[in-house]
């Protein structure tokens, strides 16, 4: 270790890189900081180092508890923006309706995450024991904005490719990792992520009367059903039950929604290793799309498709059928 560190210390490249890192971290003293800023203005290579560190360390912001600024802050920003040179005047021809539409509760497009209410939002319940179960309480969710949302999702598709792919399973794993391996003392008290990790005592509540349930059998051929997919419209969740599919080590099954209204397959998330995987219903899609879509399961690298589109073989497909009449009480998927 010491030999390594000595070698590191002799490495001139590291000097620059550490300077970039400390600039990002904020530990340079005022003079060094000014020097670093001069480099940023003049040296694209140094800028690239800084960007890399912003990316490496920037993820830590996720754990910072949000605080709502006073309303006057926005007034002042608005005033200063109005007084500044506008970069351009052109509006995109069709602003994305769902973004524009019913504030303040904007349902995130792809994976149903809780609503935009920065300070006091419901914390998603993450069951730390069974990794495959990412349950969401049956809280009232604004009805998807129908066709508007589809339009938005189409618009967002090209952005989504670059926006990074992160699975809900990864989130649960991360919660596990933090909860179990890193103990709360990892983080300074004010930013401990503790409130995010909650044990679910019981499954999602089943309100009644229940709307119809829709089921798809995902299979390669008629004799080999692999997964059962159930949309629970009341609980705003979908459940996948593993029937015949084998566990694949080092690989993940990923569920996709394919609709002729959408530019490409949309991931509905990974299917966990257990018999049941329950996920929030994708709020981005309206009922018509959900009902008419084809569902497919592909085999992806562990953690899911790196690109946001299926990369592995599509193993199973199926379409939804109405499985129960409205009001029929079905306890399990």
């Amino acid at each position, binding site marked *: 270790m010491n030999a390594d560190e000595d070698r590191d210390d002799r490495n001139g490249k590291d000097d620059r*890189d550490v300077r970039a890192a400390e600039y990002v971290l904020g530990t340079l003293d005022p003079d060094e900081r000014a020097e670093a800023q001069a480099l940023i203005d003049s040296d694209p290579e140094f800028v690239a180092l800084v960007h890399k560190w912003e990316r490496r*360390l920037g993820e830590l912001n996720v754990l910072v508890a949000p605080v709502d600024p006073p309303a006057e802050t926005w007034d002042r920003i608005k005033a200063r923006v109005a007084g*500044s040179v506008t970069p351009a005047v052109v509006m995109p021809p069709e602003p994305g309706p769902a973004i524009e539409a019913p504030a303040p509760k904007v349902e995130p497009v792809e*994976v149903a995450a809780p609503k935009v209410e920065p300070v006091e939002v419901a914390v998603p319940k993450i069951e730390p024991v069974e990794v495959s179960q990412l349950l969401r309480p049956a809280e009232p969710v604004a009805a998807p904005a129908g066709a508007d949302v589809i339009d938005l999702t189409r618009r967002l598709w090209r952005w989504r490719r670059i926006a990074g792919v992160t699975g809900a399973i990864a989130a649960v794993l991360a919660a596990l990792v933090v909860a179990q391996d890193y103990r709360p003392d990892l983080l300074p008290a004010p930013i401990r*992520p503790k409130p995010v990790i909650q044990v679910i005592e019981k499954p999602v509540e089943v309100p009644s009367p229940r709307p119809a349930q829709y089921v798809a059998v995902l299979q390669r051929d008629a004799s080999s059903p692999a997964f059962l997919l159930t949309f629970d419209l009341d609980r705003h969740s979908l459940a996948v039950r593993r029937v015949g599919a084998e566990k694949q080590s080092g690989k993940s099954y990923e569920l996709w929604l394919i609709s002729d209204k959408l530019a490409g397959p949309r991931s509905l998330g990974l299917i966990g290793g257990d018999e049941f995987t329950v996920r929030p219903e994708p709020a981005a899609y309206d009922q018509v799309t959900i009902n008419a879509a084809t569902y497919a399961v592909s085999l992806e690298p562990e953690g*899911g498709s790196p690109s946001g589109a299926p990369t592995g073989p599509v193993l199973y497909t199926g379409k939804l059928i109405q499985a129960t009449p409205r009001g029929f009480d079905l306890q399990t998927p």
Partner: protein
Amino acid sequence: MDLAGVVGMLTPGELVWLLAAVAKGDEAAFERLYAATRSKLYGVVLRILRRTDLADEVMQDAYLRIWRNAGEFDPSIATPITWMVAIARNRALDLVRKKREASLEDEPQAMEMASDDPSPLARHEMTEELRRLLACLGDLEAERRRLVLLAYYSGWSREQLAAKLDTPVNTVKTWLRRSLIQIRECLGS
């Protein structure tokens, strides 16, 4: 599928879209962008500055900069929120370094606010990147990890870190350096 790696916000894809609209001078998009990100950025800068007046100043500077430079945002380099947080953090760090230690002790009301954390942590999802970073931080010795986290979250200078850990400044400098190199090697990128 991208879980927002951000709190109570839109997904990264939506934020990218908003930034693209802001780059074209769309004020409505800018307002939505502000609504979706303000509490995260304010939380970050308030933790560093510990004074609401300074945090307000930094928020103005940061969002003005975001407004002007939205066109420079490159989704292949950063996610929208890390880009915006970096801008705000840098403004906060500039200010806090300029004021040196002064800002820390002269405002008891602000200290209270920083330590007292009544609001629940807003919802967030951990990204794969964060998971890996936390794993790498977990490999650091406890004191060094603390240094890195205190520097990142609280914006502490080497002097403040040295005082906190009762260690010479040069030791802090060496530890930071080695920790950062170790994090880089651990992340492998």
